[in-house]
């Protein structure tokens, strides 16, 4: 069961601010019982904790991706030509995985699977013994759909922030409640048809 999904920036935002890792979308699937926080803390603290945890994950993915691209000798994304389409973008994407120990920052051990498409990162926070091959496939499909339906590859790039219902519907179909699905291409086709029906409305 996937614990969380996030979309975030990877490289320094060229429009002026320093290399802040901006989290664009997070979704918690609440798949583990949380240890109650000490009494006396504001009830909003739990949400704050969740947001901070996701920020930590995003920052770690950012450094992992940067190091991986450096080691592979890839040029920085700003100087690259934009990819032709979403499928090509996802195929050329950098992919990696690392483990988060107990308390770093989640209460239990987690595995983070990430995909770096140009200057965008898509990350899945999974359980330690998740079927990583299935998770990788799901992440790539999700990324492809996000790129397509949230129009990341063209201007203005604000859809991910405003058109949240699209991301919600994508996650609802492809990763319902964080459940990874063993869906063959016909199942995916049906789901994609439902998604396409929704998007055209």
């Amino acid at each position, binding site marked *: *069961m996937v614990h969380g999904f996030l979309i975030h*920036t990877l490289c320094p935002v060229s*429009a*002026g*601010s320093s290399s802040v890792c*901006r989290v*664009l979308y997070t979704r918690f699937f*609440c798949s*583990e*019982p*949380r240890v109650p926080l000490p009494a006396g803390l504001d009830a*909003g603290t*739990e*949400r*704050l904790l969740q*947001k*901070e945890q996701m920020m930590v994950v995003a920052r770690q993915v950012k450094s992992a991706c940067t*190091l*991986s691209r*450096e*080691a*592979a*000798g890839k040029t920085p994304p700003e100087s690259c030509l934009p990819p032709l389409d979403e499928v090509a973008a996802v195929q050329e994407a950098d*992919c*990696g*995985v690392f*483990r988060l*120990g107990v308390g770093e920052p989640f209460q239990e051990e987690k595995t983070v699977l990430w995909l770096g498409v*140009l*200057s*965008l990162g898509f990350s899945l926070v999974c359980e330690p013994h998740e*079927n*990583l*091959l*299935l998770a990788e*496939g799901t992440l790539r499909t999700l990324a492809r759909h996000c790129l397509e339906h949230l129009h*990341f590859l063209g201007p*203005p*790039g*604000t859809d*991910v*922030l*405003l058109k*949240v*219902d699209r991301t*919600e519907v994508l996650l*609802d179909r492809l990763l*319902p409640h*964080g*459940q990874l*699905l*063993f*869906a*063959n291409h*016909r*199942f*995916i086709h*049906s789901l994609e048809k439902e998604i396409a029906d*929704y998007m055209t*409305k």
Partner: protein
Amino acid sequence: MFTAGAESLIKQAREIQDEDLQKFYTRVSKLLYGKDFGNETVDSLQRLYLIVSATKYSRALPEDVLQLLQDLLCSSKTAEQFQALSCAILRETFPCDLRNLSGEEGSSKTMSHVAEVTLAQGINKDKVSSVAHHVLKCLEARQPEGQSSRYLLPVLSKVISLSPDSLTEDQINLVSRKLVDWLRYASIQQGVQLSSGGFFTSPRTRQPGPITEVDGAVAADFFTVLSLGQSYTEDQWMNMHAFSMIRKWLLCYSTDGSGNGDTDDKSEVDGSVMSMVSATSTSSRLLPPKERLREKAFEYCHRLIEQSDRKALKKSDAELQKACLIEAVTVMDIICREDPSFVYRAFACVKALYGRLSGDLAFSRALLPIAQFYLNHSETAAVDSEAVYRQLFTRIPSELFQEPMLAFEFTQFCRVNVKVLRESVSIFKHSFPNLFKPLAWNSPALISEYVELLPSLIGPDTAIEILHSLLDLPCLTAALDIQLRSASSQPSERVPLDPSVKVSSSMEAFRHPYYRGMFLYILRDEAGTGDTIDRLSVLHEVLADMADSPRIVQCAQTTPILLQVFFNEAAQFADEKLINQLVLVILERSSLLYDIPNYKREVQRVFSSQLLVLCKLHPSLIVEQCKELMEFSGTTGNIQRKENFYTHVVWAIGEYLSVSYDKRCTVEQITAFFETLEAVLFEITQVRLSASIPTYSPRVITMLLTTLSKLASRSQDLIPRVSLFLSKMRSFARSPAVSSWYSEEDIEEIHTRASELINLLKLPSVAQFVLAPSTEGTSPRWHRDTNTSLPLAMRAVSKVLQRDSSFSPG
């Protein structure tokens, strides 16, 4: 991709003023109240989501807006867009005072959204139980036309992972029965395709045909996730969802032991006999629900494994086949753990699968759950597993180290099972050269895994070789890179070079016979062929052109961490012999390292601190290794190349070369060391008028002075010599040439130190006490016992030093 426009949107959402916010809330509530479901409402809700989600700190929405959103969420007539938006907003505004949402009726889709929001509000057992209750009620009831129960299984899966006790025994049995139906008895006809209202309708609707396999053949047995059809029926969707959650379910509700069958008498059942899948299925109708589910899940996995042998027509299906293999073997493993009577049937299947996959590198990821299965159950079934482990530890790391996912999973496997592997798998202990390959290639991602894994690899017989391998980890990275590039180059570029040709790059060296042996050693699979090679410096030189490659630099940055881990572990069990060997390696390798910027300095830093730890553990090593230490400390070049480390060595000599640490320490040894160090100090303090600024720091000088004094205090014939030297040092410090080399404070420091030592050595017994305290000085009794002479001695010494300093010339 991410533009300034988006950046400013986030800023606006965060900095929106209270006044504007209130106006916005009012507008939203007016739109929702008026049941206006047009574009403006959509837009407003989207902005509302951005506002509540853009900040870390939660915003409290006004009551009426909350209420309206909840109404929107719970009504099954709401369009999906509004349901999605209200679900997202309500999720972000927790904590908020929700009325009890799960009491609402609705379609399964609504139910699923409501459950999501409820569970996001904080988890307590009652809430989870009530959600579980409603989900099950929905599952049991017949869904109205157009609705599907498939949205409910993921909710159920989440509920059981949050709180497995939230389901009663009856509910568990109910779900088990349903899962059996969905997994095993789903229809094998395709679903009727819903026409999308195109121009050509009824005359062209086709009769649904049978389900096919991934290679196009008609389905051979019951429906699984690897069955294809133009469109799917409800129970086929449930089949897919049920398999997606079956692992979690079985793990959650495992029963202890087995209720059926004999599991103990191995001699009666021959483990290698093939048993057919359906042979036992007829009797299973009599089993209780949980056990029946186990049986059916086992059959499903068996069928998946058979289906994976087919050649899929689409690439995504081929990937799914691999994922299904992994899941199937893992589920079988779980079932066998719960009920050992399945082991024989499972092994028949898994062994055949291994035979099919072992030669094919493309299926290497499936090899890991197979190996785990063997590790868990091969003893039970008395099956020989050597071949599997050999394949795992020789081929995978050496041929697939560059695949990040496989490398990670492989390392996880080693780390999680390290105890068992160390004890029962003989090949594991000596495969560390291979095990280091994924780490060398992808250090940043795997370093934390190896920090945990490394201690278990180190043993008395492998420690020295592991130390050498760790020190040459960046060389391994370089060699692997060259190997990969060579494999992908033209065949003409892979021909071995003539021995007389001079090489100009590392790529050429890889093909040159003179260097070939060295590369082969670095890239070896197994330990035991020698701790290191003789011509290591030659290898380092020839790899120099790769020293600034990013991958090698990353590896060089992680190696010192591993060295620390190594020494921490080795210190736990090392005996005297091993400590001596380690010190020799430290001395030898301190300059024999691959020349990457900063690498040498960091490794020498680790060596410095670890040398002292080793000395503390086994102080006699100074005496035992006196020849090597004398040679090391007598070489002036060492000061230039590794000053910090040299200083530590000299300090260790001064501290531990005494009879109180080792009875074998002779006066001759002390004198020999003294003369060696004196010669070095003399050499580096020769004032040469044409000399350039020296490359060593004043600390070396003071350290040498102190050490010489320490040695002199132990062998008092040397005191006149050292006193003479010290007074020479005082004038050295005041010479005009030196004052241009060092700063004012440094010169003062040298001068003060020399003066103090001279004064100290005028009182030999005090000097002996101060400069070489006996080992008892470190035991607590001295500090607690006020009657000891330590405070008096301190006072005496400080008086001596102070008295003299007031007379010393300026």
